[in-house]
């Protein structure tokens, strides 16, 4: 058995530390060591995007990030989207437009959507579809999700 490493990172704006194995997946570290179970596992092979989080401002699949590569990173998960009781604009839009069904893809989908709107505050429908193309949803056919992201963009008025 190898030694654990000290993983320090900024998690949803809060400095956190944990002793973890270097090849532990960021996904497992978030869920088990930090107790943030909002991030979901759908495939474990970087295909479904249910575990998508923002790492240093970029969308990544947490199942493909070994803990050692998350040292000193800024991580944002679904738990870090709302401000207190106030939902993030994409969360609010998903609620209003029924962008959620079973909810298991939702955390990753929200982060993909938030990331997209950071980069493209006024996206076309094609850009929205590309922006969430790494997040598989089996319930919605993506229709209401696309509606929600477009509506969130409008609500945010082009401001990321």
């Amino acid at each position, binding site marked *: 058995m190898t030694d654990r490493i000290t993983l320090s990172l900024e998690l949803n704006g809060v400095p956190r530390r944990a002793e973890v194995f270097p090849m532990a997946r960021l996904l497992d570290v978030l*869920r088990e060591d930090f107790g*943030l*179970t*909002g*991030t*979901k*596992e*759908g*495939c*474990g*092979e970087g*295909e*479904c995007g*249910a575990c998508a989080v923002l790492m240093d401002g970029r969308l990544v699949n947490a199942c493909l990030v070994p803990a050692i590569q998350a040292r000193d990173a800024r991580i944002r*998960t*679904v*738990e870090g*989207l*709302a401000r207190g009781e106030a*939902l993030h604009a994409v*969360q609010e839009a*998903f*609620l*209003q*437009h*029924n962008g*959620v*069904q*079973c*909810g*298991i*893809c*939702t*955390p990753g989908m*929200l982060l993909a959507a938030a990331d997209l709107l950071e980069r493209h505050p006024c996206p076309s*429908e094609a850009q*929205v*579809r*590309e922006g*969430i*193309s*790494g*997040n*598989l*949803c*089996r*319930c*919605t*056919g*993506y*229709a*209401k*999700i*696309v509606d929600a992201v477009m509506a969130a963009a409008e609500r945010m008025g082009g401001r990321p």
Partner: protein
Amino acid sequence: MEPTCVGTSVLRREGRDKLLGAALYTADLKVPGLLHGITVRSRVPRGRVKAIRFGEGIPWDEITVVTARDLPGPNVVVHIGKDQPCLASEWINHPEEAIVLLAHWDPYLLERARAAVTVEVEELDPVLSLEDSLARRQVIWGEDNCFKAIRIEKGCVDPVWAEAAHVLEGEYATGAQEQLYIEPHIVVAEATEDSVFVRGSMQCPYYVHHALVELFGLPEDRVRVVQMATGGGFGGKEDYPSMIACHAALLARKAGRPVRIAYDREEDMACTTKRHPSRTRIRSAFDIEGRLQALDIHFLLDGGAYMTITPVVLSRGAIHAAGPYACPNVRIQARALATNHPPHGAFRGFGAPQSLFALERHMDEAAVALGLDPAELRRRNFLRKGDTLATGQVVKEDLDLPGLLQQALREIHYEDAKAACALQNASGGPMRRGVGLAVFMHGCGFTGSGEVTLASRAGLEALPDGSVRVLAASTEIGQGATTVFTQIAADALKIPMALVTVAERDTDRVPNSGPTVASRTTMVVGKLVQDAALALRHTLLTSGLLKEPYGPDAFREAVARHLTERGPLEAIAQYQRPPDLQWDDAAYRGDAYATYAWACYAAAVQVDLVTYEATVEDFVAVQEVGRVINPVMAAGQIEGGVAQGIGWALSEDVRWHRGRMANASMTNYIMPTAMDLPPIRVFFQENPHPAGPGGAKGIGELPMDGTAPAVLNAVAHALDVQPRQVPLTPERLMELVEVPRD
């Protein structure tokens, strides 16, 4: 207060929790002392176990090991039959049979242990195709490999062929389809000698309950099953949770500690049930005017190694096989056969997508042969009020299939689209376009006498704060059951939705409202919720505690007073067979369903002859589903079903290798991404039906039935070919349009 909830798009009740990442799925449970459980499987399609060896280098004394020898009673996971073992002991009938279960707190040690178990098997010749099963090359189930045979006859087809103006034949095939819910199967079990408690991801808590009661031989009240937030089901979590719950409970009982079994994606895809592969032969006769005179249909399903729920899948497929057409002479012969694949099971549509695919493709082929537009041929044959379906069921409702067709044609701009396609396709370039239709129906609720047998119960209880809680075992799996029940109850009680909650699906607390399947939750269970709510309201009104008209405060006060002054207030309604519904299961005659949802779908596709890829560019889904309770959520059901249908039509191809799924990963089993799907345009025509609450029918499965034939009909139109198999992958399409090179 007047009813305002039903018919409006109120927001999803559990939506906020899901959006915050706070909804509790099974994997999110913190369970002290939890062990992990894993499964060692057969890996060969058919054989006989000779020995199980536990290799060296593993501290076996620390690991909980369960084999068939540890079973407390009969070795069975009960569904319709009792043929499926919980753990294979001697005979192996498919490559994913569970043989050994292992549990330990250290998942990494468990992986090494799994690799150290060797199951020595004497292999036997497997049956891996419908043809081999039909030919009885090996008899692997019963006396003839046949799980169930059904014959439906209306009129007599035999004399028709000789006199018909047109006689056509075709054979159509559909492949297995993986449900691919994004949350794989998972349960957590706790067990003692005389009790079992299971929490998990599932559609049907009482199915799991039944299986555990049978396996452990316990009284019903010693087994408790709770559904956690469930990340999709689509039929895939109808029967398999019983298997995995039994496994986890066996380990937990032996270990004396809670055990979690969580399948990873590969194990989930390889081992659990899929849509039944099918083969349908159709012989049809039309008169000179294009009116159907006879349909002779042979429908086969590959059921896999055990019966599970295959007979009822076959039944639904057979009953839907003649489609929404008035045909005086129909003969449907259906059989479900055993093979050495893992058992196939429920997936949205439940047999109907298979037989309707065949029929709706056949109708387009007939249109070509008769020189009629496919829309016109269908129009000439539509069922109308007073006509009879294949089982003799009389259409009693105001059915308007021409109206559905007309709206679909209008929305897809059918005539313009056809003209544009003709222009484009004549230009000789590699991009071809086509437009296609399908008209179809889906029976709501359990088939035949199924609802009578289920005798579902659901209701409401009053709470001390003056609110009420819906009691039903029907699960929220994303489809919106919680929200719809709330709407129905609030309207019936004439109170705001804020005063209604829905109880956790816990077999200790909610009555058995039947499985969450068969497009029955809104129509059948929703009706029970409505009846119970009306009864509860009646109790309050007749008690004198509540007087009409009343507001929310008066209602709360009345409820609270009832609880303090008169005791508990609860109303449970039980399904009653409507007097005008008759079904003869022996003859397969009568009212197969209380009613049907009806639809016409239209697809516009583009095919690139450089790559043979078909892309759906526009999709119109028009349906009549009675009264729509929540339009946005109902549209969400249709859109999701259409997406699954497009996947089944074009890309979702289960590849088999010696009975095992060879592409058991999300990388290699190709479901659509957001970039693969068109906008899906959904339209409802409302026609309230008395069977459902507020006139609602079922809708969940409907969109699966007509999507694939609409898409393939559009491809047929684009290329002037007749594809007869789904998925129509680019590889298969190439074979249809190109002459082989060598």
